């Protein structure tokens, strides 16, 4: 594991040239106005206490309402009950309220809110409203592009509620948490752009942590990822998430992600010129 981190750090320091289309976190930038992004996120995480893998399928649709505001809806499907089962869904909005851009660089800050519902059983202390818990989250994201290295960080408050109708949130667990992330992204190919059809390859390194506010129990994960962009419109992410540290009960912290992502530009028709 140390080797993987080392290799990634060396790659980042060699040449600063990056992207911010992260795998497990969102940047402060939004999808373009009037564009629709469809993402099919799949994850396979190894169960720690029983044999087998925990498969999650998370289709999501993101729409840019205007240049600063985007909305997203997601569905959560998992095999935890031994067959594919629709467990819940989620709504999210992100508002970019600060931007300073320069040639090949920018600094942006966005605020976001998310509400999710889920009817699955609650089986761990980790609070995760993306696919596990009913609840809400509010946070802030700052993303900096320096020359061509993208660095993004977020801080959020996450509140878990009961998973209706059958699974109340256990009273012995802390039901709210602080989440923090730090992500790096770098473009490794091409060295020089020729056209829109050229495949782009990005390397990402992301850190995601959580602290349960009531009892201070925490975890920190690292996720290295490789990302391919085809035709400047379609994206495939392959990522491996691994726990670095944890003092809380988590049932399946280590696993892989495969994301398929496609952007439909200007879906609401050709805009008329105001002039």
């Amino acid at each position: 594991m140390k080797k993987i981190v080392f290799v990634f750090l060396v790659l980042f320091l060699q040449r600063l040239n990056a992207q911010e289309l992260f795998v497990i976190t969102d940047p402060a930038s939004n999808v373009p106005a009037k564009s629709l992004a469809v993402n099919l996120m799949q994850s396979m995480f190894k169960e720690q206490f029983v044999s087998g893998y925990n498969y999650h399928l998370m289709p999501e649709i993101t729409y840019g309402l205007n240049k600063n505001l985007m909305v997203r809806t997601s569905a959560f499907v998992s095999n935890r009950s031994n067959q594919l089962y629709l467990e819940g869904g989620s709504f999210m909005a992100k508002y970019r309220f600060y931007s300073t851009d320069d040639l090949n660089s920018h600094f942006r800050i966005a605020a976001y809110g998310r509400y999710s519902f889920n009817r699955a059983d609650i089986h761990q202390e980790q609070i995760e409203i993306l696919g596990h818990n009913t609840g809400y989250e509010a946070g802030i994201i700052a993303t900096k592009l320096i020359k061509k290295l993208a660095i993004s960080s977020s801080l959020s408050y996450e509140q878990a509620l009961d998973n209706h109708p059958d699974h109340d949130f256990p009273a012995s667990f802390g039901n709210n948490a602080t989440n923090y992330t730090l992500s790096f992204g770098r473009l490794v190919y091409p060295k020089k752009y020729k056209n829109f059809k050229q495949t782009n390859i990005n390397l990402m390194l992301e850190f995601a942590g959580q602290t349960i506010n009531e009892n201070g129990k925490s975890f920190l994960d690292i996720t290295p990822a490789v990302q391919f962009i085809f035709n400047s419109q379609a994206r495939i992410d392959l990522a491996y998430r691994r726990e670095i540290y944890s003092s809380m009960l988590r049932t399946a912290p280590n696993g892989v992600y495969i994301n398929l992502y496609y952007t439909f530009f200007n879906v609401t028709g050709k805009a008329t010129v105001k002039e």
Partner: protein
Amino acid sequence: MNQNIKIANLKGLFTAFFLLCTMISKAQMSKIELQATGLTCSMCSNAIYKQLETIPGVEKIDTDLNTNTFTVALKQGNELTPRVFKEKVEKAGFFVGSFIVTTTDISKQNNYIIIDGKAKNQKATKFKVLDKGYLTDKEYKKAVKNYKEIASYSKENEADFHVKVLN
């Protein structure tokens, strides 16, 4: 009765005046070159390209992905102004860092105020837009100091464009 005729005449006069103003102020841009800021990825450039494509009057777009420069050839008789391009780039999630226009006979266009240089060639003039939103933040701050004696420049009036002649 007389008053009604007077009002009608006045309305006619206003309409004629308005039409005249509109006709005069229509730009005859033949080509624009814009450089977008805040991006380094081809997917981001593609988002801008797709936005620019939706502008009626756009004939051809050439993109330099390494500098994020879009050279847009415009159809004859188009009535576009730089504002629509700026709005489209911002819709894609980015900003304009440089905006250069090639136009025919700038002297006939009263929505362009030359504040730097002099138009020599009446047939084809190349100029750079100096208003807020058409320069990088740093360049705009410098320009505000440089052109502080030009009263209309600092007002950030969206209808007029303050320009520097390049040829």
